[in-house]
């Protein structure tokens, strides 16, 4: 056992140098490791706090006939049991679609829909009371819809379809050398944040409520709580301490939990805590959208994609939630890094009686890219072109080959550069031919290798969300409090914001205290989502800091004793906690300058605000510039599988990822590695199964398997692209939260390569997702002609 030192020794930033672009520790790391980091469930409870426990629907779709609370209310310790009729304001938990009753009324629309909520002195009393709530249902007019295919048959959709088109795609495909068509399914994924949803509501005087919420979107929680209580937003303060993981699962759905706790507080006048246990969390909340698609593609014999037609259907679940934006992002990523001369993409959102699917890292992007990767992989098999080479030749190029399906040109494309650097450093070609030889000699164990490219659009596609605020406060002793609108869910946003703040103010990291995200510090914030946290909030923090520095310059110049303060102020320099001027030998401390500013009656707090310029999208026309820029990445992935059991394992992964000029490389590396492994889980392990009546069967880690330590590849090399400054983004950086998730799509390419070795032509007819051992064994059976592709698919669906 080797006791090696860390691979990336994070340098401790010296006092004199800006911490920007340097490795740093996670700002809460030591608190995590000592058990001192506090999450909502860890907060000390005020006296007389009640616990809340939702009573969940047991039917996927039924009419609510009656709810009998009599016995439950008589139980000792029960303060209230509330139903839809008790809501003083609007009984709607949706972000904007107004289709999501917080407490079911008239109908229940999925198993897990809260029909009532119990508030009692203890969880034990809550559970006992919940068991006594008698809910009577009668059959709804129709059967529940439990699959995308059923919703298509019954024409049941959310929202409006989204259409993108260019050129005469039918003709292009008809005239092509290879025509491909098929159907494709991708699966759901539970977020499995280690911290389940939680909220604590404390009623204050004059109808104010303080809410501690595990949420990525405090402003929306504030708005929704105000609506449900029929109050103005100024009455509600939402504070978000760190989350124990979010991944999109706490973008909208934290609101439900906070609303139920606030409702209890409103009625009883007591603090209320609602914390979901793992089973409740998995049954009640939405997942990554499964997508079903049909496609038709045409290629030239040389491997050029000539036309692509895709119809996609997202499984939205019972309510719309963010499905519309997720569908949009799926369509925006049907191209991945490939130029598609003629195309027709159409997307719809299936309305089903399942939990309402929601944001999850990638937000439809991975599901979209997966489809074109399937098309590319199949084309490579049919045309007998090495898949990486086929993909490389389809990358975006010079105009007119740089136009995306939504007519935004791809500028400064880094796909080819990453491909060339990575395939060389990972010896892709050599390994691929070695593996081909090896597979011929080994009947039972097969290997596969693939190259995966990723291009991911950065910005909220609802353009108005691309705004952020910050509040920086310097106290008269020079200490600094930093507030910004973003939330910390582990991704290192606070570390990056501290770094930017320290850089801008010219102080060390420990000079600044990061505050919990709170709606009374920065109002009207957007969700921390779409990988945009650092891009947007970083700019706002920088703006606020620059405002303060502009105020401090003349103060310092005055302390330095210059007569012409205004002229000399420009040359005042802030770095490493010291304030200097080229014409003065003596330096001042930042604290001294702050004190002087206070004495000179200069304001020491400032807001910063930022909005992303020049982005807009016209959904009706399928055209616009939805993205500020694109992030890129590449991966070379090798797998080994056993043909007797279908078990498989990643043996080597090499990644080269574009994060621009990294704000904090050690944090970005963590995002790349973590995103990749999460993608691996989605594609190979994680399987959500529902019963025939719509009940989730896999609602705990006993049956729902996310990757564990040994699933990480033994050889896992991650590099960040060098010399990659991104113009017009904070300090040349790029967003990193979501794009690396898509790198894992290459696992499918590698598995195809291995499974294909069982077929004489190397063709893989069927590779159901997730690629569990059973799915792989069935794919091999198909490749060997022992099973039809349809049978294999049927089996995969259980």
């Amino acid at each position: 056992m080797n006791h090696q030192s860390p691979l990336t020794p994070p340098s401790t930033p010296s006092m004199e140098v800006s911490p920007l672009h340097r490795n740093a520790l996670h700002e809460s790391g030591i608190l995590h490791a000592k058990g001192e980091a506090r999450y909502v469930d860890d907060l000390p409870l005020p006296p007389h706090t009640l616990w809340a426990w939702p009573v969940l629907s047991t039917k996927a779709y039924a009419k609510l006939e009656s709810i009998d609370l009599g016995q439950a209310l008589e139980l000792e310790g029960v303060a209230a049991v509330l139903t839809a009729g008790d809501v003083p304001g609007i009984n709607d938990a949706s972000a904007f679609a107004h289709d999501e009753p917080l407490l079911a009324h008239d109908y229940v629309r999925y198993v897990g829909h809260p029909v009532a909520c119990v508030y009692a002195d203890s969880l034990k009393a809550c559970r006992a009371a919940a068991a006594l709530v008698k809910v009577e249902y009668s059959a709804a007019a129709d059967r529940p819809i439990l699959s995308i295919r059923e919703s298509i048959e019954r024409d049941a959709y959310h929202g409006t379809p989204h259409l993108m088109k260019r050129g005469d795609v039918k003709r292009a495909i008809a005239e092509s050398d290879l025509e491909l068509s098929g159907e494709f399914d991708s699966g759901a994924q539970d977020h499995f944040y280690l911290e389940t949803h939680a909220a604590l509501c404390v009623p204050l005087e004059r109808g104010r409520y303080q809410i501690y919420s595990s949420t990525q979107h405090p402003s929306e929680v504030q708005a929704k709580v105000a609506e449900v209580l029929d109050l103005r937003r100024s009455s509600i303060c939402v504070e978000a301490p760190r989350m124990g993981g979010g991944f999109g699962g706490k973008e909208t759905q934290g609101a439900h939990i906070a609303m139920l706790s606030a409702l209890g507080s409103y009625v009883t006048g007591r603090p209320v805590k609602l914390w979901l246990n793992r089973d409740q969390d998995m049954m009640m909340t939405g997942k990554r959208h499964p997508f079903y698609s049909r496609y038709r593609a045409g290629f030239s014999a040389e491997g050029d994609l000539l036309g692509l037609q895709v119809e996609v259907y997202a499984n939205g679940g019972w309510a719309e939630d963010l499905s519309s934006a997720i569908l949009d992002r799926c369509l925006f990523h049907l191209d991945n890094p490939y130029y598609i001369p003629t195309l027709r993409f159409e997307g719809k959102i299936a309305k089903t009686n399942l939990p309402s699917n929601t944001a999850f890292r990638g937000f439809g992007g991975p599901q979209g890219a997966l489809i074109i990767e399937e098309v590319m992989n199949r084309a490579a098999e049919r045309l007998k072109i090495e898949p990486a080479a086929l993909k490389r030749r389809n990358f975006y190029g010079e105009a007119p080959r740089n136009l995306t399906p939504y007519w935004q040109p791809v500028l400064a494309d880094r796909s080819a550069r990453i491909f060339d650097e990575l395939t060389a450093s990972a010896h892709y070609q050599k390994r691929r031919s070695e593996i081909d030889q090896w597979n011929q000699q080994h009947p039972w164990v097969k290997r596969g290798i693939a190259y995966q490219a990723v291009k991911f659009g950065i910005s909220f596609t609802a353009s108005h969300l691309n705004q952020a605020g910050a509040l920086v406060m310097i106290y008269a002793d020079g200490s600094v409090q930093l507030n910004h609108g973003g939330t910390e869910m582990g991704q290192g946003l606070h570390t990056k914001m501290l770094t930017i703040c320290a850089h801008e103010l010219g102080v060390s990291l420990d000079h600044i205290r990061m505050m919990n995200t709170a709606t009374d510090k920065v109002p009207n914030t957007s969700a921390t989502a779409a990988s945009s946290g650092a891009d947007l909030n970083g700019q706002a923090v920088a703006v606020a800091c620059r405002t303060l520095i502009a105020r401090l310059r003349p103060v310092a110049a005055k302390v330095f004793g210059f007569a012409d303060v205004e002229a000399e102020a420009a040359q005042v320099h802030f770095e490493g906690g010291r304030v200097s001027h080229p014409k003065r030998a003596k330096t001042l401390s930042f604290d001294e300058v702050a004190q002087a500013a206070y004495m000179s009656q200069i304001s020491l707090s400032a807001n910063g605000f930022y909005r992303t310029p020049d982005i807009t999208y016209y959904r009706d026309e399928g055209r616009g510039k939805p993205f500020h820029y694109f992030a890129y990445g590449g991966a070379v992935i090798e797998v080994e599988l056993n043909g007797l059991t279908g078990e498989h394992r990643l043996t080597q992964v090499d990644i080269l990822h574009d994060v621009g000029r990294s704000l904090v490389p050690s944090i970005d590396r963590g995002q790349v590695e973590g995103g990749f492994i999460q993608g691996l889980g989605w594609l190979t392990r994680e399987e959500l199964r529902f019963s025939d009546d719509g009940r989730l069967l896999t609602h705990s880690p006993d049956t729902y398997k996310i990757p564990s330590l040994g699933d990480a590849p033994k050889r896992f090399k991650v590099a960040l692209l060098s010399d990659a400054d991104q113009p017009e983004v904070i300090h040349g950086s790029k967003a990193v939260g979501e794009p690396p998730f898509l790198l894992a799509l290459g696992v499918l390419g590698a598995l195809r390569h291995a499974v294909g070795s069982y077929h004489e032509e190397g063709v893989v007819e069927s590779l159901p997702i997730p690629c569990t051992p059973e799915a792989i064994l069935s794919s091999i059976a198909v490749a060997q002609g022992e099973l039809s592709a349809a049978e294999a698919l049927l089996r995969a669906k259980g």
Partner: protein
Amino acid sequence: MPEINMETVTRPYLYINDQKVLLGEVSPTTTLLRFLRDYLGLTGTKEGCAEGDCGACTVIAYEPQSDSNEQASYRALNSCLLLTPTLHGRRIYTVEGLVTRQRGGLGCGLGQESDAEAHPVQTALVERLGSQCGYCTPGVIMSMAEACYRTDISEPWQVDDQLCGNLCRCTGYRPIQEATEAVVGLRPSGPLLDRLERAESPDDLQGRQATMTHHQQQQRFYRPTDLSTLWSMWAEDPRAELVAGGTDLGLRITKAFEVITSLISIDQVRELREVKMTDDGYWSIGAAVPLSDVERLAKDQAPALERMLRFFGARQIKNRGTLGGNLCTASPIGDTPPVLLALGARLRLASASGERLIAIDDFFIGYRQTALQPGELLIAIEVPPPSEVGETHQRAFKVSKRQELDISSISACMSLTLMEREVNGQQERYVREVRLAYGGMAATPLRAHQAEQALLNQAWTVETIEQAIKALDQDFTPITDHRASAWYRQQVAQNLLRGFWLEVSQGAPERLPYRPSSTLILSDTQDQGARS
């Protein structure tokens, strides 16, 4: 009715971070996790699943030297499944207890960053950015803490084994693995090391070995530490259920919210913790010996059992779960029953009136039903010595959706003795003895008798194996559930037999390599043997 020992302790206590804590009026079915968080305000330890599948609740317990534990050690345990009174007299350390503290107290004060000095495992993880959201981190830290004081980690797979019970959704694990590798066996000086290096204090020994009862309201809880006391307590309360490690029973409390009225905790009963050779040469393992000890000892005594235990479950579960428990829950997908069936183990059962031995073949009588009579207890599992004649091959297989910490879709163990004979003037190897046992294929763990018959006394050839594979169809009619379809189970049951043939004929090593791509060790598998 026999008298209960007059010295029975009725005010149970345990030590949390070296401070004595009384249980008071806490319900006997309160889990340690709830006790720490709700009664002591120690919120560093987290609940991620309440079923021992995520590790966020991991703590370590001091484990004294014993038959199965060569030297005193710390053991990582899932506090979410531990019933607090079973820990009477024992020492538990939480994430708050690792630091070197300037002030007193069980943990840090709320809302203040403690001035406590971090333990090397904490520093090692932080330096490598092994925490992102931080929610799994306290559990990761405590699993690393066990590794830090272990002296028996010499192979890379043991680091995976140590950490596979700690799910992390953020990091992708690379930094966690590297941090753990950096602290394995480090044993930094300090109070935790001092405790391992000195003899257990007489007070601790007495507390740990004391008979204890903890009756609160409607619930009764007994903890005998020897068999005779156990019999008298059971006689007093014949409807009491027995609990050993509690990794299965705990779920009834944390998931089904069942109120269990009467429990006898048997994990400290000395006779059940013995490991010895019987007079007739069987290797006897006490029913309450933790599986992690069984795994280590089986490396020499029963390699097939060791192989199965590698991916049996998380280290935390193996530190608490027992061989007896795994047999007595009689789950059709338990992992050790097929191994013990194939090895031809026998079981020592006892009751107040005496002992009896039965073959394990006679133990599983129906879905989750065993041959245990009312008032009867499994006290030891006895594994026979390998056949003295011929050439014996024993291999265990487990196929699951995820290799680590998952329940089998299908498991199997195969034991084969080959001998030479002359047929028509030609030497040939033939099957002298064979036992094929499967889990996940029927309502109970089951031998494949038809397939065995197809092999017995036949030449050891691929044709014979193909005959046996055909016969498997008559042995089993598996079902479809959310772990696997009937088709998959049938295919893999056949293929495991095929794989067994390949392993034996290729002379594959008995032990699993580091991070194998399959439960089958085929000679064309990458990275044969342990990676160093």
